[in-house]
């Protein structure tokens, strides 16, 4: 069976090369035959990748220890669902998942445009197939998942306990769906340049593909944060760790692009800039995979050190150079059709937004790679961590929050003084009011107050926009308010979907503010019956139990949680000792309320029988996850807007 797997990957490699060659030939000569064969080759790679995944899954589920990959990442006592998800526990399997998603995007793309005979779409498929060559090549020649052991061990080494978590079953596939998806916008951009195409219809298509993977990437990042929160047991969810930063960077640039693309659609400006942003987003998602997988930088999330680093770096270098060269070569195509009329306008605010997003990405990139950069420049290795990012990124992010409110209510071309007055006075008043109300609750310092001001400012502008939209339609409507809101959103899904995403962002900011600035901590060794006080809570140790789980021994401290003298729950903070690795794993107890999380960790059991308990109060964490859900909702609404494409198709 392993030979079949290897054969599938090798055929995939051959088919990818064939697809690129055949489409290139078809584009050159104008024959449609080679284009059709090329399309079929892309489908074939997808089928072959699927076959390889099925073969590897079969081996994983059967715990066939003759496979090196299976022996490295599973064991016989591993629960079946984790055996399934160990496909993406190691490097070879992750690369295979990458390839599967990549070729699925290629096929989905060709399926979506199967009725369009324009060779432009074949050129996009060619770019996707070029990336497929890289991944099938890696999987065939450098990092094969189908290596067979000379002497199969009686049992495998087991799955890293950190990865034995329900979140880890969905986080990597969702993150990859985001990462990998940026290949499609990249393909569009390169195809435009290769074929020297003008026109803006592709821009709307790119926007939709970008929105789709941007949404997945965002969810993937938040799921990763959630995993860190419940699994790593340090009381937080984001530590500016290199791997976290790696996933954030393409998301930031992608967000910038989703804004500036509107200027291009509306005013035919910023074409070079937009194509550069698309290319950068794609390169950063490859860079993210590289960071996660190569182990160049120390990270809590990286589970391997390997030999594929140079391959990824070369790939980034070559594709980045090719993209830059193409942009320069087609400079004439990317001439701006309009000029900026005024800085205080929608365009101006979007431009400002873009500069800030790129600056934020740059700061994150620099901070992440600082040891490497500083060694190259000054000869001494300097490293920065969370305090650096809090210092540099927080003010930029706050400036972006303020722009979130200001941008959408500035008019295109030029905002007049009356517009400014109409749109800004109320939000500013509400912002100052909110900051004033928050002050007695302990909000102090510039950044927290700016954050609260900004949040109220943005929410007010959004409410005003909705109110104005409803008012404009009121003459003919007498329906109830919720129905009117729904109707309004349906009328312009893109616009109001965007506002809903903004609302999610505001929730996220408030959640981050609450849980970072107002976190409380307490710890103590407790004997049965003793209590630990933290904030309004009293935690009483009821006892410590020990029991055998499937592949681990679980020590659990049972804690009675009281708030204001009233019992509100019984929580279980545990430590699991995995039999395979003899590694302890903290299992956090979370007492969840909408306003705050009570987060409890069992440090261990002492010789005298007391249990060391550490507890945190993390206010408003639920807004971080809730904000994420609202953002997904807004993204879905914006994505469901097909009107514009149809309208443009009719016009074209």
């Amino acid at each position, binding site marked *: 069976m392993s030979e079949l797997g290897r054969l599938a990957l090798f055929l995939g490699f051959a088919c990818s090369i064939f697809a690129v060659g055949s489409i290139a030939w078809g584009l050159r000569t104008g024959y449609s035959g080679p284009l059709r064969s090329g399309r079929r080759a892309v489908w074939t790679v997808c089928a072959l990748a699927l076959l390889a995944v099925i073969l590897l899954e079969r081996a994983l589920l059967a715990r066939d220890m003759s496979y*090196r990959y299976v022996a*490295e990442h599973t064991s016989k006592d591993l629960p079946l669902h984790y055996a399934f998800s160990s496909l993406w526990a190691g490097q070879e399997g992750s690369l295979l998942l990458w390839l599967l998603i990549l070729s699925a995007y290629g096929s989905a793309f060709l399926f979506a445009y199967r009725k369009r005979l324009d060779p432009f779409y074949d050129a996009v498929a060619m770019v996707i197939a070029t990336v497929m060559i890289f991944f099938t090549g890696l999987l065939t020649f450098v990092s094969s998942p189908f290596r067979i052991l*000379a002497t199969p061990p009686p049992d495998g080494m087991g799955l890293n306990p950190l990865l034995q978590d329900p979140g880890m079953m969905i986080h990597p596939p969702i993150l990859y769906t985001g990462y990998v998806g940026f290949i499609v916008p990249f393909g569009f951009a390169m195809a435009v340049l290769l074929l020297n195409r003008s026109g803006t219809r592709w821009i709307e298509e790119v926007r939709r593909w970008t929105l789709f993977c941007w949404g997945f990437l965002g969810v993937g990042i938040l799921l990763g944060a959630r995993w860190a929160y419940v699994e790593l047991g340090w009381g937080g969810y984001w530590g500016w760790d290199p791997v976290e930063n790696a996933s954030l960077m393409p998301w930031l640039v992608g967000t910038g692009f989703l804004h500036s693309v509107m200027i291009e659609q509306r005013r035919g400006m910023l074409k070079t800039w937009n194509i550069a942003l698309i290319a950068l987003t794609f390169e950063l998602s490859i860079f993210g995979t590289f960071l996660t997988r190569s182990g160049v930088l120390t990270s809590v999330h990286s589970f391997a*050190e390997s030999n594929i680093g140079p391959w990824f770096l070369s790939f980034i270098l070559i594709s980045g150079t090719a993209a830059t060269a193409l942009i320069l070569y087609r400079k004439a195509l990317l001439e701006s059709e309009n000029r900026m009329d005024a*800085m205080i306008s929608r365009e101006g605010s979007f431009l400002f937004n873009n500069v800030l997003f790129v600056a934020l990405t*740059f700061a994150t990139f620099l901070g992440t790679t*600082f040891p490497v950069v*500083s060694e190259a420049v000054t000869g001494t290795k300097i490293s*920065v961590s969370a305090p650096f990012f809090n210092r540099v990124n927080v003010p930029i992010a706050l400036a972006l929050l303020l722009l979130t409110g200001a941008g959408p209510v500035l008019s295109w071309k030029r905002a007049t003084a009356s517009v400014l007055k109409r749109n800004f006075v109320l939000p500013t008043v509400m912002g100052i009011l909110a900051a004033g109300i928050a002050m007695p609750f302990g909000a102090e310092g510039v950044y927290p107050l700016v954050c609260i001001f900004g949040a109220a400012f943005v929410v007010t502008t959004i409410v005003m926009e909705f109110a104005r939209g409803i008012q404009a339609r009121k003459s003919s409507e007498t329906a109830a308010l919720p129905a009117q809101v729904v109707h309004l959103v349906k009328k312009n899904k893109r616009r109001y979907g965007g506002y809903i995403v903004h609302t999610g962002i505001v929730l996220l900011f408030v959640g981050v503010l609450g849980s970072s600035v107002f976190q409380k901590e307490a710890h103590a060794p407790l004997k049965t019956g003793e209590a630990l006080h933290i904030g309004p809570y009293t935690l009483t140790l009821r006892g410590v139990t020990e029991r055998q789980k499937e592949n681990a021994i679980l020590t659990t401290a049972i804690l009675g949680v009281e708030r204001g003298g009233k019992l509100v729950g019984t929580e279980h903070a545990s430590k699991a000792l995995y039999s395979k690795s003899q590694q302890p794993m903290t299992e956090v107890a979370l007492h969840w309320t909408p306003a705050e999380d009570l987060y409890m960790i069992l440090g261990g059991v002492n010789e005298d029988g007391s249990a060391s308990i550490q507890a945190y109060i993390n206010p408003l964490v639920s807004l971080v996850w809730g904000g994420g859900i609202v953002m997904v909702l807004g993204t879905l609404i914006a994505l469901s807007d097909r009107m514009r494409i149809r309208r443009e198709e009719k016009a074209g």
Partner: protein
Amino acid sequence: MGNSTRLIVMSLVVIAAVGYLILTGVKQTGMQYMTVTELAGLDRAPKAEGFRLDGTVAPGSVVYDQREPKLQFKMTDGKENISVVYEGLMPDAFADGREVVVEGSYRHAERAIYASKLVTKCPSKYEAKGLGKDKS
């Protein structure tokens, strides 16, 4: 002033502001990345405050008071070693011989790092070792 000039001025202002943030950020929060031997070899107290060290936990050196919680151990790069004091829970993957990264301030008189952050690299035994060769 034309709009393109204004645009350039705006970008320059943003770049200058971000550059300022980055420079002061590095200055105030940057940590010297050193090997254990380099740090142990210093004969005077270093000027820099923050340090970041890679190394392994010297076997048998770990003293852990779970009640505080306070973790003390010696970190080694095979040649020299340095004491590490960390006030916090022992990370799950922490054990003798594991690769760790510590960040914190160095007290030359005690030859010890007072760590504010302790990251344990995932044990390499999860990766290909001890499984023997491939079938050719």
